[in-house]
């Protein structure tokens, strides 16, 4: 129907005028050097204060965290979790009344098995960085998800031993099973599957080790992409779970996203100001991108980024749309075996929601037989 649509009487126009360059900090009037959001130019000091305040506000508003509670922080070494960890660290180092009241342990999931076990000097550096921060941390191989006891699989580091992780247990069998599952999954679905398994592994770990909150580093830019991506994958209102502050799909467990209101750009600024080192370990997104294989996720990411550059409120509007969605409260409770969400779709002969069903579509034989392993 050409570019005009009968059902549509709204027409957007792009703000063609270049945004005025604000040279003064909106907070203190000094020379501004950071423009993360249009009309919000700030000097470095004010930006840092704003960043910290916003982070603390997000935690405080949630009213979820108890005094002295041990909370898990999912650390990937990427820019978001590096910033998250440093914010937490600063919170813990604050003087009495401002001090964060809960305690934080860090978990790093080693996904190397999917990308040729590339444990290298970067990983060592990451561990060194972590140890200097003084957190208790765990390293867990992704394939340990298939092992009956995570207690046997973890590698803990205290501040004294730095070096290559020595796993006390061989996970060769688990590794080859996991690889088989990924091999048989369609390339454009691999990242989705990886994220689902990562969530399930974190859950399993939290259950086994008695944590009930996990801090995640997702930012607004990433989450809006995720939301739109979810819509493109038939998630409907369930896409809301991917972006809420506290994701409660796993009973007795909160996946918390305290960075969810930061734009990616703001995180970059903050990390650069504090001169934090971050790492880019491979994932299927980056692998696909460098192989020039397009995926629904890439197309969505590029689309939003382009639109955001033309219309600076795009990310936030999409994000808010997601916040307004509500998963249906239908009486029947079909819990999807893969993503653990209660879904409303009644597809016969399956324990999967529409979207997970699609991930598992078109897969080569073996995947289907291996899949039940994941439903734990």
């Amino acid at each position, binding site marked *: 129907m050409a570019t005009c649509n009968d059902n549509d009487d709204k027409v957007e126009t792009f703000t063609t005028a270049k945004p005025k360059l604000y040279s003064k900090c909106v907070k203190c009037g000094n020379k501004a050097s950071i423009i993360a959001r249009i009309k919000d130019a700030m000097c470095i000091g004010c930006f840092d204060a704003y960043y910290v305040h916003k982070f603390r506000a997000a935690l405080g508003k949630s009213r979820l965290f108890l005094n002295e509670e041990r909370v898990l922080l999912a650390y990937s070494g990427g820019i978001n979790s590096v910033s998250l960890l440093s914010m937490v660290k600063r919170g813990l180092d604050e003087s009495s009344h401002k001090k964060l009241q809960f305690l934080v342990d860090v978990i790093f999931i080693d996904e190397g098995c999917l990308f040729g076990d590339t444990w290298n000097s970067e990983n060592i550096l990451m561990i060194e960085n972590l140890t200097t921060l003084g957190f208790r941390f765990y390293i867990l191989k992704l394939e340990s998800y298939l092992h009956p006891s995570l207690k046997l699989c973890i590698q803990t580091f205290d501040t004294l031993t730095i070096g290559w992780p020595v796993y006390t247990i061989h996970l060769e069998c688990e590794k080859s099973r996991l690889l088989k599952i990924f091999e048989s999954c369609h390339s454009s679905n691999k990242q989705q599957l990886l994220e689902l398994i990562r969530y399930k592994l974190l859950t399993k770990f939290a259950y086994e080790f008695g944590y009930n909150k996990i801090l995640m580093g997702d930012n*607004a830019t990433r989450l809006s992409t995720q939301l739109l991506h979810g819509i493109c994958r038939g998630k409907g209102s369930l896409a809301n779970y991917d972006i809420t502050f506290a994701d409660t799909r796993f009973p007795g467990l909160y996946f918390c996203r305290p960075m969810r209101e930061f734009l990616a750009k703001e995180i970059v600024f903050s990390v650069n100001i504090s001169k934090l080192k971050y790492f880019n370990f491979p994932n299927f997104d980056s692998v696909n991108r460098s192989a020039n294989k397009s995926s629904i996720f890439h197309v969505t990411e590029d689309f939003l980024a382009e639109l955001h550059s033309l219309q600076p409120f795009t990310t936030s509007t*999409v994000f808010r749309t997601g916040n307004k969605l509500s998963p249906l409260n239908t009486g029947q409770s079909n819990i999807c075996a893969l993503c653990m969400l209660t879904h409303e779709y009644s597809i016969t002969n399956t324990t999967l929601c529409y979207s997970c069903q699609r991930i598992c579509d078109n897969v080569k034989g073996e995947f289907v037989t291996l899949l039940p392993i994941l439903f734990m």
Partner: protein
Amino acid sequence: MTVQCKYCEKRAQLKRPKTGHAVCKSCFCSIFEEEVHQVITEYGLFRKGDVVGIGASGGKDSTVLAYVLNELNKRHSYGLKLHLVSVDEGITGYRDDSLQSVKRNESEYAIPLTVVSYKELYGWTMDEIVKEIGRRNNCTFCGVFRRQALDRAALKLHVNKLVTGHNADDIAETVIMNTLRGDIARLQRCTNIVTGSESLEEGDLVPRCKPFKFVYEKEIVLYAYHKKLDYFSTECIYSPNAYRGYARSYIKDLERVHPHAIIDIIQSGDHMTARVDAKMPTRIECTRCHYISSQILCKACILLDGLNSGKPRLSLTKASRPLAVSKEVCSKKDKVSKGKECSGSCGCAEIQGNDINYF
């Protein structure tokens, strides 16, 4: 190497865009028709004796719709009385040409045609409106006016159902547009296969349905090509909606990666609900034209007022103002956590509260 048709002995001649199946020409056409028939029966779109108005623009979608509906009506004895309804917006070089192709359809398919024009309904042609307001917002005028025009024609003709040629691509695109706009109310209903009576805001008097909800645009083009249908394929000369253009090419990109994405987006749209209960506005009549409205004056009358008084821009903001009556219920929890009473006109706190400062 020859590939055999998935459904018969013949050689496959094309790959179905929707499924990727190799099919021959005749199987493609019959599957195409059969799938539309299935949708019509599954959703109970029609009843025997319905007078169905087909919104005909002369473009590929409505031309194929008229053709297929006519065929199915005969083949499966739907017992429908079909009627082509066209709106003449008064766009020289576009609508006058496309109307010619609708007129040819009228005689080829032997379906009566009625044309209503903006000029006779509103006293303005689109050419005149564009002269007045420039090219920037003309699509808004056109959209509001067309909606009403179809309804008015339908009433005049005693049509009790309107069908439009919106295809799966269009609907997916609308889901994306509404997501990008944060228009949750529309998001909830934009994939409905039948709209009308229940959706007041749109002001439809006559129920509308979209039998092509699951039909891919590419397949419509292929079908029209193989059936050698006569349609008009120039785009409206006044349609500069760049924003929609972006959404459109996004859908095309997604389709290229995975054709199923279009259906997945529609599936999403079908299962999207708002977190807070949106109170539906009460229906009232426009005090001037008696068209259904949620304000004292309907959108068309507001826009017309603007045109006639020489202040069309002002009327644009008035017409697009959020409906006065559509208050979203503010949940108690929000009141407490934001520490302030909700003002009542609500959005609620989500929109008025902290978030807005950050975004």
